[in-house]
């Protein structure tokens, strides 16, 4: 069994959107869940949060940034290619409920998993205030889509090329110090951003959730590679999460564990890029031709 790529384009440099035909996954998917894909027989299994899904047309959308070998390889695929495996939906769905005002924070490629949450929280009758951030304007994704699904939208860039010059946490703090009551915050992005959000909300009594994306193999609770420490207790992000109370997450441990395979990732990228550059190439195995 293989999975067709229905659509694929580069949204901003190094960030790509892909629609995968997987009707059963689309039917069962809910905001907050993730999938695991494998490109080919020698590939590794990588988890990606679901960015969107369409039951009628039977597809699931994923958005990924080129980081390691697998995402670089994925970036070279076209609609002529197929994925070997596409497993999901995995993890617990977000607990979408009517609360009042919900602040959604997406940083970098983390805007992608925030997008279905914006839709879901709005559908449930919440006022949705979204904050999306990127290093600079040309790396910002899903601005229009997020605007459509939000009652208010704030944009931040690290270099000030668009919106607020600074970090998403600046806006979070402004909102918390403002007059309007905030009932929940959901923040998804690089670990360092989620840790910063957890720090900012500390003095305030507002429920704050983050979505963790640690190293995992199977995504069903079988390997335990995705162990995270939540309030001193070991949890498996794949089955107990991926969303957890931001205040209770041991970010230092999580970030350290995320770095475990960095030398191997670098080696894999080096070998891969050499193969791509070499005249004989890899025999087309990497599909970059």
């Amino acid at each position, binding site marked *: *069994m293989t999975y067709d790529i229905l659509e694929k384009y580069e949204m901003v440099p190094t960030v790509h959107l892909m629609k995968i035909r997987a009707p*059963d*996954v689309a039917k*069962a998917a809910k905001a907050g869940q993730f999938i695991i894909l*494998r490109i080919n027989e*020698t*590939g*590794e*299994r990588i988890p990606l949060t679901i960015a969107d899904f369409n039951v009628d047309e039977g597809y699931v959308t994923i958005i990924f940034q080129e980081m390691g*070998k*697998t995402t670089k390889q994925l970036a070279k695929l076209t609609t002529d290619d197929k994925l*070997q*495996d*596409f*497993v*999901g*939906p*995995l993890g617990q769905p977000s607990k979408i409920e009517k609360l009042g005002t919900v602040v959604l924070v997406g940083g970098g490629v983390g805007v992608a998993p925030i997008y279905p949450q914006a839709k879901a929280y709005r559908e449930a009758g919440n006022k949705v205030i979204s904050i999306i951030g990127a290093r600079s304007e040309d790396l910002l994704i899903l601005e229009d889509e997020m605007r459509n699904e939000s009652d208010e939208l704030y944009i931040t860039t690290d270099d000030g090329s668009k919106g607020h010059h600074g970090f998403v946490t600046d806006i979070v703090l402004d909102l918390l110090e403002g007059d309007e009551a905030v009932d929940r915050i959901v923040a998804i992005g690089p670990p360092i951003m989620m840790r910063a959000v957890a720090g900012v909300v500390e003095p305030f009594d507002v429920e704050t959730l983050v979505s963790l994306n640690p190293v995992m*193999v*199977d*995504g*069903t*609770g*079988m*390997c*335990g*590679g995705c*162990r*995270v*420490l939540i309030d001193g207790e*070991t949890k498996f992000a794949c*089955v107990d999460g991926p969303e957890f109370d931001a205040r209770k997450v041991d970010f*230092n*441990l999580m970030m*350290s*564990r995320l770095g*475990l*395979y960095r030398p*191997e*990732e670098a*080696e*894999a990228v080096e*070998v891969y890029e050499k193969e791509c550059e070499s005249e004989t190439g890899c025999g087309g195995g990497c599909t970059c031709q």
Partner: protein
Amino acid sequence: MSVRQPMPAQPADVRAHNFKEVALGYTQEQAVAEAERCIECKNPQCVKGCPVNIDIPAFIKSMKTSDFDSAIDKIKETNSLPAVCGRVCPQETQCEMYCILGKKEEPVAIGRLERFCADYELEKGVKAPQRAPPTGKHVAVVGSGPAGLAAASDLAKEGHEVTMFEALHSAGGVLIYGIPEFRLPKDIVQEEVDYIGQLGVDMKPGYVIGKIKTIDELKNEFDAIFLGTGAGLPNFMGIDGENLNGVYSANEFLTRVNLMKAYQFPEYDTPIKKGKHVIVVGGGNVAMDAARCALRLGADEVSIVYRRSDEELPARREEIEHAKEEGIVFRLLTNPVKILGDEKLMVTGAECVKMELGEPDDSGRRRPQVIEGSEHVVYADIVIMAIGTSPNPLIFEGAEGLEASKWGTIIVDEAGMTSIDGVCAGGDVVTGAATVISAMGAGKLAASTINEYLE
């Protein structure tokens, strides 16, 4: 007195550095000679030791005249996975334990003979299996490990349409992700899985039941369901430092090595940390497998840390001997109390205590007790926890009325039926972690229960 034919094997110093199969299998001459040791006793006891009731005397008799075709046909009447069982069954506590020869000398090597017949057929090309006419009934089999494969095979032979759901990307369950290549080559597993496929079983890999579909939904689509989801959830000790970098569950370590082929990184994309000094905590077959994989990945020293003594090691004796021959160090009567790490949260070793054995506990094994003041550090850059697994609770998501025990196992009656009518279960998900063959026996029992239920 006849002497049991020794199993040809790769020399220990060679095999410790490769992932190729350790036991090489009998030659034809050896197989016939070993078969001839069977005295064809009037009241054969061996069969009662076989969880799938192979007609052992009959297949061995055929082997005596080199009629291996009849022998494998006889085996396959009740066992769809003979190449697997011939390799990983603990025959010493099953069929061979009952062999009458065993009273005075060594029992007939029934397992090795089974393996010979299975390999003979694989080499020659497997005959397409016979199926009964279609019944028009649809059965879902959840999990493609030994229990699921055995159930699917029997159900398909009865003429039912069988759909098999597997969470991982390859069928085989623990045969694929758990048991290493050097003990059970993956192309052998694939051949056995292909045989089940030839029976018309529709394989659906990458389908996590409980997520993509629930049991409640499957009930609407199928006339009956078999749950053979195994015991895939790794246990940890609950001691300090278990989340440090470099601490693996045996499940993760073995899955990376076996299923994902991390030992061939970077040819295969999945990485694994290769330790120089590796500790494996536990004394079962999984611990031996993990230790021997770590050694083959290039470790300088691999040690098994086990809290009881050699006598209580739950692994098969053959596996323990193989591990010792390869140079695995056994730190017995030793138990870790804390995993140690550095400022980068990388594991550096384990603080351990020495144990002594006291009075027998509920399991009949002597209870290990800590020797005061025996704290010491065993240095390691990789620690692997192989202290058991539990059933995966995912299967209970959206399974209204499916009763579980306090250990998380599914409760079944003596026929393998769960608390939901038409839903059977068997294997590790019912018993907790056990053997390949007991899971297959449970799969076959459930298949016959489902047959009756569908009539």
